Each structure stands twice: as structure tokens, then as C-alpha cells.
């Protein structure tokens, strides 16, 4: 099982609220850590923005919206290891990220699936790993600070 990552989380908030946090580019950026232009996502469009995590600000995140089904599902494709500004990743395979929202007893069940990792060349993964390692400790500390502060 190296092709996909699947996450499921129960959020104690109405589906409309969770949808806004994913569908609105500014809200998405706030929790994901990227600065997109204002507005909402539309199927077929390409969106790019700078990563906001300290130490990663020069990385640009490019995504291509695949589907947008209001309050139900949103999906996009991107290059998960596109971390080297000197490399043109456009011809390389992408992974597909899908957000699915469902009503749950006391909130919203959100499922995230990222798939297609097996198509990404191993050397590219190793490269990304090295670059990730460098900033990762820093980033984790940062997140802890943010989460604690917002409690």
C-alpha cells in the first residue's frame, strides 16, 4: 500500500461550514498553509499560490481543479513533490486529492484520499524526502504553536 493516503476526520461543525473551509480559497489556504488569490474554486481552473509555512515561502503550489460538487465533493490534481524551484514538473505525473463530505450524527465526516503515488518516480520521492526533512522539525513546532494558540 504505497499508492494512496486516506484520512477520515469527524468535525463538530455543520457540512456548510466545513464546505466553506475547503471551497473558499482564502479559508483553504489558512489551514493548508498556502496563499491563494481570493474567491472560490471552480472545476477545470488552475490555481497557484505561495506556501506560507516559514522556510517554504518560495515554494509555489499549483493545483488543477477536477471536480466541485457543492457541499459534497471537491478534487484537484497536483505535483506532491514539486519542491525544487529549478525543476519543471509539468510533464510529471500528479496525484489526485479528493475531499468528500458526509453528514454525521454530531457534525460532518470528512474523508480525504490522495492517490497516484506509485506513478511518481522513486528518485523524485527521495529528493522530496531530503528537502522535507530539512524543514519538517521546524514546521511541526510551528503547527503546535498555532494549534495551542487557537485553543
Amino acid at each position: 500500500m504505497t499508492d494512496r493516503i486516506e484520512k477520515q476526520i469527524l468535525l463538530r461543525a455543520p457540512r456548510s461550514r466545513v464546505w466553506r473551509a475547503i471551497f473558499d480559497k482564502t479559508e483553504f489556504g489558512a489551514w493548508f498553509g498556502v496563499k491563494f488569490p481570493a474567491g472560490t474554486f471552480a472545476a477545470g481552473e488552475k490555481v497557484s499560490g505561495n506556501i506560507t509555512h516559514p522556510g517554504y515561502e518560495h515554494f509555489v503550489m499549483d493545483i488543477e481543479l477536477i471536480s466541485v460538487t457543492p457541499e459534497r465533493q471537491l478534487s484537484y490534481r497536483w505535483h506532491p513533490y514539486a519542491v525544487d524551484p529549478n525543476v519543471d514538473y509539468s510533464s510529471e505525473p500528479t496525484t489526485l486529492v479528493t475531499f468528500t463530505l458526509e453528514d454525521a450524527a454530531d457534525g460532518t465526516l470528512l474523508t480525504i484520499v490522495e492517490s497516484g503515488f506509485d506513478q511518481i518516480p522513486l528518485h523524485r520521492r527521495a529528493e522530496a524526502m531530503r528537502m522535507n526533512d530539512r524543514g519538517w522539525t521546524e514546521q511541526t513546532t510551528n503547527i503546535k504553536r498555532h494549534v495551542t494558540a487557537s485553543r
Partner: protein
Amino acid sequence: MSITRLTEGSYVTRQAVTKHLNVLAEAGLVRDYWQGRERVWELRTEQLEKARSVLDTISAQWDSALQRLRAMVEE
């Protein structure tokens, strides 16, 4: 392992096994070297571990992002 060992007890031909091994080698999962007159293949487990740990890192990044999403929508 040599091709002889790899094809022992199987109906697959040496040519077919070599073809598969070459594909795996291109993907960086196996490598071959010559031992005397015999070509020996070995598994590159470090490559698999690398792939696995990259996925673990991305998985951890999703976990952190989801905690931030939770803080945002549940407040």
C-alpha cells in the same frame, strides 16, 4: 539470487523473469551485478523504505493540516 534460483520450481522462462527484473531495476527496486559468470539480482529494500517514509511524511502533513482545519471550523 541468480536467474537459475529465481526460476526454480516455476513454469516461467528465464527470459520472462529477466524481462520482469529489468522493469523492476528501472524502477529502482532491484539491482544486478556479476558474480563470476553469473548475473545475480538483489532486492533494494532501501528504495521501498524510502517510498514508505515519504508517504509517512505526507500522511503526517495531512494530519497537521486537518488539526488546523478542525480548529478553524469547530471554533
